[in-house]
């Protein structure tokens, strides 16, 4: 849930995303009349909202919520399944006009877009919002502006440098021009991130902006008690005619934070009183799968969404004998993926992953280089490969896993399946708060890591280059937990990054993913799905792939 930063996976791997699902897209609109404007929608969240400040908002959960409050240059389509991955114009009139070989990107704001106090949204406000992400005081946001904008590597943010960043031009109040230091074919997708939301300079309260971002969307913040509750009310200046994505149906949205997962499941299974107007924010827990599936009335209120999160086992190729591809192949054959899925709730938790790219990503194609009957692993084949590599007497490896129930259960599933091939696995549990900084430290990481990745937007360009580019291995904060470094792959990543046609790039990433899989730096085992309970009065519910299958909050409404 921590979804997007290295975290993305985080939540995932941490088991905080207790996933479940039964396939297919949402079906919340069946029967019982149509949704109408008005009413109060309740969202029951077991998570906290990490950051609402657009400069710091970089986890899928907060992004789902913030789409109610502020708009960005582009955004995801409001649709279930793969269609939700499409980037559509939001504040801008189109998804961006590249020039100079995709090194310069120009956007024009729609006329008539306004803030919560009625003033018009200007291109200068977008520029200021992006500049804020360079400030060390607001550190959590995505790195793309710092990586791509010309002069971005030295700019210190608007608090230290009042001159602003010259590579963002605002020739008039409705036009904004980004000059990049390299070609970026999917920059139009990048500007769907919260950091491309407008922030008026006179409303900037520094670190305190986090608790009261200024609204450009259908709702403004009426009250925010951190860790407890966020109350949103209608922004009367939001004009639906300028917004093709958000429906803005409920008059009020109340989001309760940090609730107990078992209690949320219990409340929504009962679904009485105000809870009929409520939805869960996170998928149901593994323990609730049985009771929900057994009761047809409750099961009808379960909405399942696809996710673009892939869970995998990282193999540290810097450690001997894991530098031998045959040993890694043996691990891939031995792994009982079905058992790993069972620890997360069984088939409702998602589909068995057979390769790197989840099917919802453009360019993904069928690929299963290490098949086994029923996905339960093939210990005989694994043993043969180990013998070939000279390890017929067995191996001992150490696995890093988060110290959560789900993390430990997954660790034990890996341990049990690899032991069938003669590999002894020692489990090293790491507290959730230290997990990513530990496995991201090349001297502290062990042989195997329970791992995963969620791309920042639904393309492979924020997945493969961030996880498998060997030149990006750093001693601390490393994402390439396999420490995989292939000159051929690195060169190919550069070539694809320079492609100007997103469709050609997607196809090339698909081919490259297959090539990387042959080197087995990681063994993918699960493509998540999310199964989320909604109250009986709630309509318009479907899981959105960009929010790892969480409900697309902007489409929800209540039946009168």
């Amino acid at each position, binding site marked *: 849930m921590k979804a*997007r*930063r*290295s*975290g993305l996976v985080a939540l995932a791997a941490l088991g905080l995303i207790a996933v479940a699902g039964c396939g297919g897209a949402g079906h919340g609109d069946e029967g019982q009349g149509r949704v109408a404007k008005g009413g109060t929608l309740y969202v029951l969240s077991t998570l*906290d909202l*990490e*950051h609402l400040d657009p400069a710091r908002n*970089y986890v899928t959960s907060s992004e789902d919520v913030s789409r109610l409050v502020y708009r960005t240059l582009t955004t995801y389509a409001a649709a279930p399944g793969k269609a939700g991955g499409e980037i559509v114009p939001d504040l801008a009139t189109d998804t961006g006009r590249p020039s100079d070989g995709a090194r310069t990107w120009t956007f024009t704001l729609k006329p008539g877009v306004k803030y919560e106090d009625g003033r018009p949204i200007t291109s200068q406000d977008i520029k200021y919002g992006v500049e804020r992400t360079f*400030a*060390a*005081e607001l*550190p*959590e*946001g*995505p*790195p793309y502006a*710092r*990586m791509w904008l010309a002069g971005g*590597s030295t700019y210190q943010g608007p*608090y230290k440098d009042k001159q602003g960043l010259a590579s963002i031009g605002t020739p008039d109040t409705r036009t904004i021009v980004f000059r990049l230091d390299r070609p970026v074919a999917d920059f139009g997708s990048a500007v769907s991130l919260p950091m491309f939301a407008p922030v008026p300079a006179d409303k900037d309260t*520094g*670190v*305190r902006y*986090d*608790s009261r971002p200024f609204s450009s969307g259908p709702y403004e913040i009426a009250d925010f*008690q*951190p*860790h*407890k509750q966020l109350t949103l009310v209608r922004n009367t200046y939001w004009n639906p005619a300028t917004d093709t994505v958000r429906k803005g149906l409920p008059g009020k949205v109340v989001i*309760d934070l*940090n*609730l*107990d997962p*078992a*209690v*949320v499941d*219990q*409340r929504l*299974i*009962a679904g*009485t*009183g105000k809870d009929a107007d409520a939805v869960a924010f996170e998928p149901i827990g593994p323990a609730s799968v049985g009771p929900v599936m057994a009761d047809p009335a409750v099961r009808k209120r379960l909405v399942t969404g696809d996710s673009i999160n892939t869970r995998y086992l990282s193999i540290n190729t810097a450690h001997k004998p894991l530098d031998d591809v045959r040993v890694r192949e043996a691990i891939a054959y031995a792994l009982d993926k079905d058992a790993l899925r069972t620890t997360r709730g069984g088939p409702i938790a998602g589909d068995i992953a057979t390769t790197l790219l989840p099917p919802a990503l453009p360019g993904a194609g069928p690929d299963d280089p290490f098949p086994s009957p029923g996905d339960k692993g093939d210990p005989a084949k694994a043993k043969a490969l180990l013998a070939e590599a000279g390890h017929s007497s067995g191996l001992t490896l150490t696995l890093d896993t988060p110290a959560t129930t789900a993390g430990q259960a997954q660790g034990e599933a890996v341990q049990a399946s690899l032991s069938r091939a003669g590999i002894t696995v020692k489990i090293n549990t*790491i*507290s*959730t*708060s*230290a997990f*990513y*900084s*530990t496995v*991201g430290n090349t001297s*502290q990481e062990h042989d195997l890591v329970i791992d995963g990745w969620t791309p920042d937007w639904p393309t492979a360009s924020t997945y493969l280059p*961030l996880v498998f580019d060997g030149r*990006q291995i*750093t001693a*601390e*904060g490393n*994402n390439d937990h396999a420490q995989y470094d292939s000159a051929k792959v690195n060169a190919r990543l550069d070539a694809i990054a320079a492609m100007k046609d997103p469709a050609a790039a997607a196809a090339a990433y698909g081919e490259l993913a297959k090539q990387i899989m042959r080197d087995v730096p990681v063994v993918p085992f699960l493509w998540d799905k999310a199964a989320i309970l909604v109250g009986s009065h709630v309509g318009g519910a479907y899981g959105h792939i960009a929010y790892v299958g969480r409900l697309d909050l902007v489409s929800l409404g209540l039946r009168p």
Partner: protein
Amino acid sequence: MILYALRRLAVAVVILLVICGATFAIFYLMPADPAQGACGKACSPERIAQIRTTLGLNHPVLIQFRDYLAGIVAGRSYGTGAQAVTCPIPCLGFSFQTNEPVWGLLTERLPVSVSIAVGAAALWLAVGVTAGVVSALRRGSVWDRAAMVAALGGVSLPVYFTALVLQYLLVVKAGVLPYPQAVALTDDPVGWAESMLMPWITLAMLYAGIYARITRGEMLESLGQNFVRTARAKGLPERTVLRRHALRPALMPIVTIFGMDLGALLGGALITESAFGLPGVGKLAADAINSADQPVILGVTLFAAGFVVLANVAVDLVYAALDPRVRAVG
């Protein structure tokens, strides 16, 4: 007496200082790096260094500790220029997550924890002490055995289990209570009581059992004492014998553990608050630990320790008032 009280308070301050130092040291050794956590993926070393400076993590640990202590008594400010934020006395630092003063986070949640602790304490004292006295008076009876088995059961049931069962029975099945919410006593007394009833019962079940067993033991002991025999021999009414001569000394140890239990609960009932989704101090601690929000963990630890230490001082003072011998020795 005043000198005694001052002495006790001075010791309390020293204890808090030691706790503060120990907690600070533990977090300094923790593997989680807040700057790294904040920086996320594709983080450059320069960026991490900038963030460390902003969070004040670039100073040596002793300087950080000194600044922290100074903040408690004098307040401090973070950052420079227009972005500076001030943290008023008593400054327990800023949350890495929300950038709010930790003191504000704590005091905002305190009413919930106090509501839970005080209500539960009243309930378990009434039930536990009564059951213990009655058991002692009817030693060996069916009542005695039933009460002591029930007490054992109450002590053994995990809070988490009791909480979920209560919610299932009272809210989902019977529908007589709402799901607990943080309702202020002053806003809606009925809603407050309805929300707090299940947490009270949950905690009271745990503590009442312990109190009943201790009361029973102490009561039996004092009933066997010579002064009780003397009182009876003097022809005092049985009621007076029990109340004034047997129960009073039996309650002294109860006062001691009650002070500590209540003090500890005021610092947050972590599991109870989490199980009922009530945003008290304990829930704040649980969430802060999950997100490695070091200043908040440190703040809650000090805050909770403060309550326990203060409760102990209060118990000592009550003792001293009751029994002059304590003052002389203390």
